[in-house]
């Protein structure tokens, strides 16, 4: 049986008083919860006369189960029409008002945003809420979007160099949970969906109590709250459902494979399963990731790109997720170099860290960088609205926009060494060598 891991991740929280060095002003966030359980977050900034509305639903590809690609297909269909908005009119009405929109699907959430000049805020709320208030997808809309996604899949997966790496790695990292699902889905399964399958998804997940709306931008606070209540407050509560609990088999032996792709430069990809977004270990590993690859003087860049000239580019990342996360390392080789030598060089650096050899100044350097990044992130209403609704939905804490920086700044050298030893073990990883076909 797979083991339950981190069913409720242990999220860390801090207060600003603990960190006097950070001179960033807290953003004033307001919140409300409507009678139907839908939560709303507001941040007013009068920088430009525009508003971003973000609505994020707690459903993603990990919930697809046997309906491969459903969450993402549904994201496409949300733009196609709703009970009072004819097919193709959603974007046309928005553009006509000077607005724009887009969306993304991850394993955990489906997130939609609209940008709109402030004077048309109500029209945008009317448009967006109509697609939550009722279902109007037709088979004509469905069939066209299946074609579009077929091309999307070719574009991002088949025809892009190294484009298959995310799916190839997740299939090996996850054996039981929905995180092994392909976001774009399996086309032969997706092709067979009918309107009832789509409607099931809508009725189960597209409920006000399974969503958060966030507004960031220039608006009157009381008026905006009243408008959100007017358009979303009357939408009926969804039926309760139980989400499958997260459980996974332990990886106890390195999983190593070769993938042949239409590429010329071989590449090495290494992945580890690590704790969920918001946990202390997650932040420790985020800082480690920056120590390894952020900037030309970072450890992996210095060794692989600069000193040994083995790689053309090196990168690391922590992909944060609700119930788990992925620590990834990738190195695209210079022509003629050996992937095994690249792998050994990476391991030498990880061994050093696991043995406790990290200079304090490397940690300080990342913390400086995080201060800069945090400030920059607050300057876009699209980014702000997305973060506010995501944090409220996943962590029930919209104020993380102000406090998350302290989660980073509280990490010590000891935390990083412990996390590296616990989670970045050679026998717990997936290694994929990409070679030219």
């Amino acid at each position, binding site marked *: 049986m797979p083991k339950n891991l981190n069913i409720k991740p242990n999220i860390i929280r801090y207060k600003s008083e603990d960190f006097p060095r950070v001179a960033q002003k807290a953003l004033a966030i307001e919140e409300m919860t409507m009678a139907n359980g839908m939560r709303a977050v507001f941040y007013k900034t009068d920088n430009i006369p525009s508003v971003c509305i973000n609505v994020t639903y707690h459903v993603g590809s990990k919930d697809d189960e046997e309906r491969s690609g459903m969450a993402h297909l549904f994201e496409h269909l949300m733009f196609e029409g709703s009970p009072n908005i004819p097919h193709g009119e959603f974007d046309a009405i928005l553009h*006509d008002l*000077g607005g*724009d929109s887009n969306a993304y699907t991850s394993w955990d959430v489906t997130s939609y945003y609209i940008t709109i000049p402030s004077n*048309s805020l109500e029209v945008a709320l009317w448009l967006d809420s109509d697609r939550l208030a009722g279902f109007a997808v037709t088979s004509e809309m469905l069939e066209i979007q299946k074609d579009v996604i077929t091309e999307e899949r070719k574009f991002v997966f088949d025809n892009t160099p190294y484009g298959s790496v995310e799916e190839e790695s997740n299939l090996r990292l996850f054996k039981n949970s929905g995180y092994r699902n392909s976001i774009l889905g399996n086309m032969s399964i997706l092709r067979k969906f009918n309107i009832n399958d789509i409607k099931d998804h809508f009725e189960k997940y597209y409920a006000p109590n399974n969503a958060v709306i966030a507004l960031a931008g220039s608006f009157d606070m009381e008026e905006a709250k009243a408008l959100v209540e007017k358009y979303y407050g009357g939408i009926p509560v969804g039926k309760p459902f139980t989400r499958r609990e997260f459980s996974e088999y332990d990886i106890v032996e390195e999983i190593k494979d070769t993938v042949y792709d239409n590429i*010329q430069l071989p590449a090495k990809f290494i992945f580890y399963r690590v704790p969920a977004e918001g946990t202390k270990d997650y932040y420790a590993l985020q800082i480690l990731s920056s120590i390894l690859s952020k*900037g030309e003087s970072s450890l992996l860049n210095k060794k692989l790109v600069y000193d040994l000239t083995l790689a053309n580019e090196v990168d690391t990342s922590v992909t944060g997720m609700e119930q788990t996360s992925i620590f990834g390392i990738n190195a695209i080789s210079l022509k003629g170099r050996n992937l095994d030598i690249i792998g050994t060089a990476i391991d030498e650096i990880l061994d050093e860290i696991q043995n406790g050899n990290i200079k304090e100044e490397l940690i300080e350097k990342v913390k400086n960088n*995080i201060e800069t990044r945090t400030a920059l992130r607050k300057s876009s209403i699209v980014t702000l609205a997305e973060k506010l609704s995501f944090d409220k939905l996943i962590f029930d804490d919209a104020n993380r926009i102000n406090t998350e920086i302290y989660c980073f700044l509280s990490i010590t050298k000891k935390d990083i060494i412990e996390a590296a030893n616990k989670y970045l073990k050679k026998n717990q990883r997936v290694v994929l060598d990409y070679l030219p076909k």
Partner: protein
Amino acid sequence: MITEKLDRSKKPIPGAPRDVKFPGYFEATLPNGINVIVIKDEKFPIVSARFVFKAGSFFDGEKYGISSFTSEMLTKGTQSRSALEIAELVDYHGAFLSSGCDFDATFVSCYSLKKYFEKIFDITSEVILRPAFAEDEINRLREQKINSIISYKDEGDYLASRIYKKNIYHKLPYSKPLEGTESILNSLQKNDLENFYNTNYKPDNLIIAFVGDIDEARAVQLVEEKFGSFTGEFVNNTVAEDEHLNPEKKVYIVKKSGAVQSSLKVGHLAFKRNIPDYIPASVMNTLLGGSFTSRINKNLREVNGFTYGARSFFDWKKYSGDFAVETEVGNSFTAPAVKEMLFEINKMKNEFVSDEELTSVKNYLTGNFPLQLETPNAIASKVISLKIYDIEKDYYNTYISKVNAVTKQDINDVAMKYLHPEKVTIAVGGNPDEIQKDMMQFGDVEVFDDVE
């Protein structure tokens, strides 16, 4: 509380739009010709500085790739600090420093928290004024750049774009790869880079734009301290060669192994950035293929399901420019997609756009305009582009009124003037075995294994 049931069939009525003004900024010119711009913004404790030399790959001559190589070498060591020392200093302060170029300009950018900015400005000044061009760093960057070219060639859109530019710009430098070629990169020596640097990096073609939490007076003082003794004059010796439209449609396919989609780039020569009908042409293109609801995206994606997305644009450069439609479509949709593009371009020329379409596109462009002014850095980019392309200073102040003044006749005029569907170059990065025959309906088809 909901007291009455909401009638969702009624579309709310928008309020009156609010006025949008392009923010003012500080500007000064030093005796040596350096143009200093300051856009002060105290919201966040961050300062950035952007250095722009109004000279880029257009001046490469036969050694194409040299502008890009020279610009990237700036941060790879100065007369007093090694590449690694620079990187460590910048990284330690959580700052950012990078350099590069496009055809019309060379850029060096840095930013950091306010508390570290003067240190970062100091090191950035040093990389601009006293680069070392050390042999070992040249060799290291050379190999990286050659490998980057190798990996670009795995991408269909790169292949399509290369063969397209080569065949529409002819003798203009815009026909060449900005990143160079393997053989040219291999031939470049230290003195080539030094010569390019000495000829093109001059104070009288330098703009320094500061953005963020910094006083105007302090910004000017910093420039005077570091760049006061920077002297010289930039001389533009390059003559824009005669440019001409190709006489007829022609298809070029560059082979991309294992391709399941065709990367398409279909278009022709258009005009340089600084022309009087830039705004009507932009409005026309937004309708044609410049947004999600444009005719081309609607046709190719929403009606036919040929693609995940399709777009058209004018790529306006300083001395010339082009018009192109770009998309990625399944192999079997290649010829049908080109047919639909040509249909939409012809329709734009042959019929007046409707009143509704015209109103909608104007609202879209003017309504989106504030978002483009959201950050001081975005404003700085706009100010810099006015300077690179010699555009009138009040361009952004009059943008909304000029967009609103465009008529159906103006749209038709620019469509007639700038769209030439009968003379398009149809460039494909893809699988010739599966598409070649089908593409012959458009004209001669040439297939290549590689493209420079």
